[in-house]
């Protein structure tokens, strides 16, 4: 089954939101990436055909944005923020700790394909740094203990209760 057939309804829904087809490009690339973990060449071609774009037009858009992978990432893609605000409160220590724990550097994946590490710029959680994003979830106010727990949780259950909920900081004072 092709990508377009597999997500026929979802794609139709996305297309209905825009008066100009090309606007659906980024949303469709997200669908493709969710399917395979990265945007495959065949998905790119199908999307190009659907939106009446040339493959280079799709490719130039994909390569501009950092969130699209052109090759598979680890099951858990760890992205640690290294911008000034997180760096002031210790993001470099977090990166070093992950390197030691997983034995990989930025841009690398563990041999079992479970984790990959990236060092990224600001993720809009400056007040709760140091922080990282793993797949779709934010993890904030990281400490070495917290990091250990998160990695253990992910290995054993695939998720961690330490992930952030709706953002609120500072929290209201309880009366």
């Amino acid at each position: 089954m092709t990508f377009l057939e597999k997500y026929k309804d979802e794609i139709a829904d996305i297309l209905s939101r825009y008066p100009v087809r090309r606007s659906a490009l980024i949303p469709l690339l997200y669908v493709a990436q969710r399917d395979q973990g990265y945007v495959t060449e065949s998905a790119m071609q199908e999307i190009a055909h659907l939106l009446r774009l040339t493959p280079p037009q799709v490719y130039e858009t994909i390569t501009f944005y950092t969130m699209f992978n052109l090759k598979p990432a680890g099951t858990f893609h760890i992205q640690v923020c290294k911008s000034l605000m997180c760096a002031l409160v210790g993001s470099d220590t977090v990166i070093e700790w992950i390197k030691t724990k997983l034995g990989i550097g930025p841009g690398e994946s563990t041999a079992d394909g479970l984790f990959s590490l990236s060092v990224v710029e600001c993720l809009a959680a400056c007040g709760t740094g140091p922080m990282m994003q793993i797949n779709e979830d934010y993890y904030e106010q990281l400490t070495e203990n917290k990091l250990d727990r998160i990695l253990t949780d992910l290995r054993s259950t695939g998720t961690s209760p330490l992930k952030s909920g709706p953002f609120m900081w500072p929290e209201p004072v309880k009366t």
Partner: protein
Amino acid sequence: MPKHELILLKNMMQPGYTGSLADYEKTGGYQALRNTLGKIAPADVTAIVRKSGLRGRGGAGFPTGVKWGFLPKDYQGPRYLCCNADESEPGTFKDRQLMERDPHQVLEGIVLACYAIGSETAYIYIRGEMVLGSKILEHAIGEARAAGYIGKNVLGSGINVDVWVHRGAGAYICGEETALLESLEGKRGLPRIKPPFPATHGLYNKPTVVNNVETLANLPHIITRGPEWFAAIGSPPKSTGTRVFCVSGHVKRPGNYEVPMGMTVRELVYEYAGGMRSNKPLKAFIPGGASAPFLTPAHLDVKLDFEHVAAAGSMLGSGGVTVMEEGTSMVWAALRLMEFFYHESCGKCSPCREGSSWLVQTMRRIFAKRGRMEDLETLLDLCKNIAGRTVCAFGDAEVAPIQSTLKHWRHEYVDLINEAEAANLIRPEPVARR
């Protein structure tokens, strides 16, 4: 604490408030919409907003009502509202909280803005990383649609408003309004040359308004309580209302604090954010996100409003206040921000694309104690040739950390270079390109 009435963060500070439609309605939510649609003429809504003095909360601070007034009045085709939720400025995290904790407040503002400008379609361009925020907004839109606040014939008024969430994909530049429009059209997020302005040639070349999340969230309150009420808060006449300041860095209680504009940095840092984390003296702060020049302890009594911060040589920008304690290397801090700008330059304009690369390489060399005294002149010369010579304001933003740290802490650069010269380590090593 807080000593002032909260407007935008008030609901979410209540115990048990979930941000659901039921919760929002209980606090008087959507009353502004009920009292406006079909009862106040769209042009009058614009006039109310203009009278309130509300200025854009995204960074540029342009008066919102005036911006709406630029739309062509006699244009018959579609027009669009884009909610700029691409919060990516280092130091800023307020829109995230507004969207995740009280999404209906933002949605009500969006529908009101759509009504005022005559738009039937609004897109919320949210930064791609904020997956949780986009899910919460999608859910809230579903609730509002079911309750008749969004969709065809809103509240029986004959007005149609559709709101869609559009996730970006990790590009800082897409917070710039024309780059946002390009990105929303499915292209690379490269800023457009202005004029023409989005007011006449925006999304799909149609009249378009781009407003920040916090700006829109203010609208229901302005409509309900009147422009005079809003205009009396803060530092009238030019900086009215409150601002949600995001305090980060070396403070005891970092976070989002909503205060009337005109509060001093000292009050915000020492009374609200609890003062310095390790009780070391404050060494430097940025008053308005990474694009704003650094200021010193001598500026602690500067009022946080558009004019006073500008007069002090910086800008209020997106409201991201980052505080650094004594002992922080200013060369390092400027380098960290420079690395951000180097990574995020979209590449459209040569001065910014090439200049950011040269700046970051020179800064890395100085910080690695391989700098030369003439590097300082090179840095300033580069800055001069980038700022004001690019399509968007990114060029001005990227030189701010370097120019301001060189202005206030030049001796730190000089010390590093002197060390390099004393150790005869001045031979530069090639720096890996990205």
